[in-house]
């Protein structure tokens, strides 16, 4: 059964529509890339899926026994985070908050999970370091480790490589691919259409024309051809 089924979804804020007629499906193991111009509503879609925003119409469902709170989320970076005094360990551990309920303190297994994910993301050595003093790529890996603490099944990533240099970007893509191969479903917003068609299994194109299909279908479609030649110079 599908993890997400969206049917004729309408997105917007305060009664103002941004997007309508959005239908797609995400199945376990998929790697979905959401592409489209700035302001086309990619982040809004992600927030709606997470329940941070209410859809204005249509509906979507999380299936397969998946709860909204069992999803790992990597938000687009905000300004507050950048000058926040917090150590890497504190931030990664906070990914376990979903399973805490009203329990006031973290358990041994929470700490073990945080350790495991820090090792997986190769940031264990920075555990005691200050988040704001890390490089952009390291910061993103911290947030990815936090997201992994929140889920074993689905990751929602909002522009995980924006602002990173090409080499770090490639490393980040490799990590995400590795996670996908290990069975985690990936839903990623990306500016980078070349990488999207390289790694993804499915593409959701927003803005102007909405298109949803497998990567191969997208490349062959008129929307895909136009966008690829525009953004990717192919």
């Amino acid at each position, binding site marked *: 059964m599908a993890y997400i089924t969206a049917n004729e979804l309408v997105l917007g804020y305060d009664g103002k529509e941004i997007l309508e007629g959005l239908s797609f499906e995400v199945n376990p193991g998929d790697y979905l890339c959401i592409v489209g111009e700035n302001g086309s509503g990619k982040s809004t879609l992600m927030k709606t899926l997470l329940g*941070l925003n209410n859809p204005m119409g249509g509906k979507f469902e999380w299936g397969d026994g998946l*709860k909204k709170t069992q999803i790992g989320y990597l938000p687009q970076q905000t300004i507050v985070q950048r000058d*926040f005094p917090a150590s890497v360990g504190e931030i990664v551990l906070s990914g376990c908050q979903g399973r805490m309920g009203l329990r006031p303190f973290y358990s041994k297994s929470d700490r073990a999970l945080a350790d495991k994910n820090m090792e997986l993301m190769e940031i264990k050595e920075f555990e005691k370091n200050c988040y704001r003093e890390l490089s952009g790529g390291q910061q993103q890996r911290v947030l990815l480790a936090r997201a992994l603490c929140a889920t074993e099944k689905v990751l929602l990533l909002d522009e995980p490589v924006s602002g990173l240099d090409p080499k770090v970007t490639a490393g980040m893509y490799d990590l995400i691919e590795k996670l996908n191969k290990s069975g985690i479903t990936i839903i990623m917003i990306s500016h980078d259409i070349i990488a999207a068609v390289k790694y993804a299994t499915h593409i959701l194109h927003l803005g102007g024309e909405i298109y949803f299909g497998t990567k191969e279908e997208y490349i062959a479609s008129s929307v895909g051809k136009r966008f690829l030649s525009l953004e990717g110079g192919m």
Partner: protein
Amino acid sequence: MADLLNYFSYPFVKYAFITGILIALCASLLGVTLVLKRFSFIGDGLSHVAFGAMAVAAVLKVSNFTYLVLPITMLCAVLLLRAGQNTKIKGDAAVAMISVGALAFGYLLLNIFAKSSNLSGDVCSTLFGSPSILTLKENEVWFCAGLSVFVVVFFLFFYHKIFDVTFDENFARSCGIKVDAYNLLIAVITAIIIVVAMNLVGSLLISALIIFPALSAMRLFKSFKAVTICSVVISVICAAAGMLISIGCSTPVGATIVATDVVVFAMCVLIGKLCGRS
């Protein structure tokens, strides 16, 4: 020195001293969160509201001011939070309106209705705190102590949730944390802290008590836990030093504590700069 020791032989002085330290402790606890969440404006607005509420209480001759001031300030905390979460500019304007309005009405009310012969003295002590910690009344001391303990327990119990909600609201929401409820709780606790601290430093100086230790600690430490602990330590030391100085030199207690906080902040900035460069 002998004078000081003499003072402490009165049990009541000890209680007052302990209360002062408890107040400083809980005022600094939420400081980090308020600064980082850009909520400090709420603290400032609320302290003015508390002054207005105090004036109303004086006019109505309520026996213990706190019983009236606390609920009013809590209510305004909720209102200010709501206003602040709307569009940015409107929120700021709302805070300014409420806080300046409360100040003006408070002073007006006192002027028109209060029969006290020493009006400016009364106003001054509500704005800047009791001239001396020794003029605190006994029931006020116990009330402050009780509320302080409540705030500390609350903070310990919700420490991780407060971190989550402060660091990344959206992520916390995606994990199913009731962010709005916690924001509300933080605003209400801020109101409690302000009402409690008003007895010590007066309504105009409260923001300083809340914010300075946090800002000082942020110059020195880089993890949330270390910053929180450090700001508590700084706040408690400054309060203790301030109270001792104020007893010794008979200076007004609130202003002395805040002045100590400012000096420590300047020192922390300096230390931070030196360590940052080496």
